[in-house]
């Protein structure tokens, strides 16, 4: 019964070989030129300015949020819209496809409303301001 695990063992071995073998192979064939420039962080071919270790502005979070709400949503809605017409014609599915799409958008709308109300969409907010809703504190 433990013999079954020969598979697992071979598999794990294969994984290890792929990783470490690749690294080893790379170290054999890659050029070895050590110098100042090689150790510097790469920043689009420009000379780096300052340290890479600094804090990002939390407000970029808003961008990510908006992106999630509007862009990713589209990624889901395109395929849905593509087949909607046939789905409507199909008796088995019928209007349900439309309803599902609407529910999806509505849920996202509730999310948007929540974020909006919470003030997370405001680009500039006072630092002293508590993140809580001003009404409840």
């Amino acid at each position, binding site marked *: 019964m*433990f013999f*079954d695990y020969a598979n*697992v063992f071979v598999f794990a071995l294969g994984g290890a070989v792929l990783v470490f073998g690749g690294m080893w192979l790379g170290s054999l064939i890659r050029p070895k030129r050590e110098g100042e420039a090689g150790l510097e962080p790469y920043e689009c071919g420009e000379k780096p300015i300052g340290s890479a270790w600094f804090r990002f502005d939390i407000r970029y979070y808003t961008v990510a949020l908006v992106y999630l709400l509007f862009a990713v949503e589209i990624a889901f809605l395109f395929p849905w819209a593509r087949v909607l017409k046939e789905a409507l014609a199909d008796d088995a599915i019928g209007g349900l496809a439309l309803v599902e799409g609407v529910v999806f958008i509505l849920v996202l709308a509730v999310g948007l409303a*929540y974020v909006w*109300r*919470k003030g997370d969409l405001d680009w500039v907010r006072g630092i002293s301001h508590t993140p809580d809703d001003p009404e*409840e504190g």
Partner: protein
Amino acid sequence: MSRTDLTALSPLLVVALAAVAVLLLISVRRNHRATATLTLAGLVLGLVSISWAATVTPHQVAPLLIADGYALFYSALVLAAAVVVCLLSFDYLEQRGEQREEFYVLLLLATLGGLVLVGASHFVTLFLGLEILSVAIYVMVAYARSSPLAAETGIKYLVLAGASSAFLVFGMALVYAQTGTLEFRPLVAQLSAIEGSGLALPGMALMLVGVGFKLAVVPFHMWTPEVYQGAPAPVTAFVATVSKGAMFALLLRFFAALGPGEARPLLVVLGLVAMASILAGNLLALLEQNIKRLLAFSSIAHLGYVLVAFLASSAFGDEAVTFYLVAYFVSTLAAFGVVTVLSDNEREAERIEDYRGLFWRRPLLATLMTGALLSLAGIPLTTGFVGKFAVVAAGVEASLWLPVSVLALGSAIGLYYYLRLVVVMLSSLDAGAATESAADSGRTPADPGQTPAWPRAARVGGGAALALGLLALLLLGLGLYPGPLMDVIESSVSPLR
């Protein structure tokens, strides 16, 4: 998507709807009490809708979800646990000034994840449920942002859970590569059809890593004490019960479908895991001074006990697993419930010293805590005893002598630390019996003026009191008269095999 489908999915839909409704409520008006009430209503409605869904069982919804008696039983368990956690959370959050309302959205979502897991009949739903559950728990674990441990705990859980999910998905991919399907039933049929195990066994072994992590069994248990300690007490209760119980329900469903030939190599590994969990959990708990960590280690051992019944892979074993999980839910929720109501906004009542003399300060809470601990230890009168009896019976029936002996050994070790806690609660340090304090030589603080005036919270809120009362009733009732529950369990696990 027919009307029957919707009926079968009604518990899921109700909880999902409740989550959206709560979010909407928060954006309209922030009010802790209203949010909690709406959440509670959603969960209770979900429980009620189970009886509605039961009218159409068994029903397969697409290839993804199945609503049979088994799924509904575990759904009820998950929802009931969520109700208890919700009731406990209200008072807990009420003491704290931070944003409280969002917690309930997360609670509902995590519950939804649990519901998806117990109804999953397809790897995609498995993963979907797991992620809904996990992502919500990531945030819940770190919810007490002012606590110094919160961020650390959150990160630890996030990284480890993410890694384990990766294992799970990779395992699924391998299984898919071998069988060409992700649906449980066809997949099992494929597995028995092919010669040798090919990539399927490595795949399932990898999946066990992901599952083992969620269940917190040795050797995937490292996160448990950290997360139990760092998370707010009601969240710990949730992680300890719902997230493990739902995963176990799924594991049982999958293995019950698996033929003996395919399951056997995996059961060997799970047997080792069970024994290691029992021993490691009990031994590590022996010297623990933090009660939340202690309960974490004890939960590792308990999952080991459940695995022993699981190994029996018989109908009787399935019943024992289910009964034990119910008993474990009740006892664990009761124990963490007491921890929750004793905590105040300064810190949680997690040090063993906080419980010194609790019997004489808060007799009811101490009695409940004792009951919960004795139930975890498997002493008669409590539901834990019947659970342990069922597990032992299942193990003996399947002639699993080695795991059962380890179980007996583990239980004997476990007694020591459960009793240690009971002793602390019994020993007196209050003014009334200061004369006795000298008796506990070496243990008592030298200066009686430093006696912990802890916990200070004097009042148990109505919701928490209701939840604790209910748990106390179940703790005793299921220990004395388990027959009806066993009937329900028997009929609900019967579709498995």
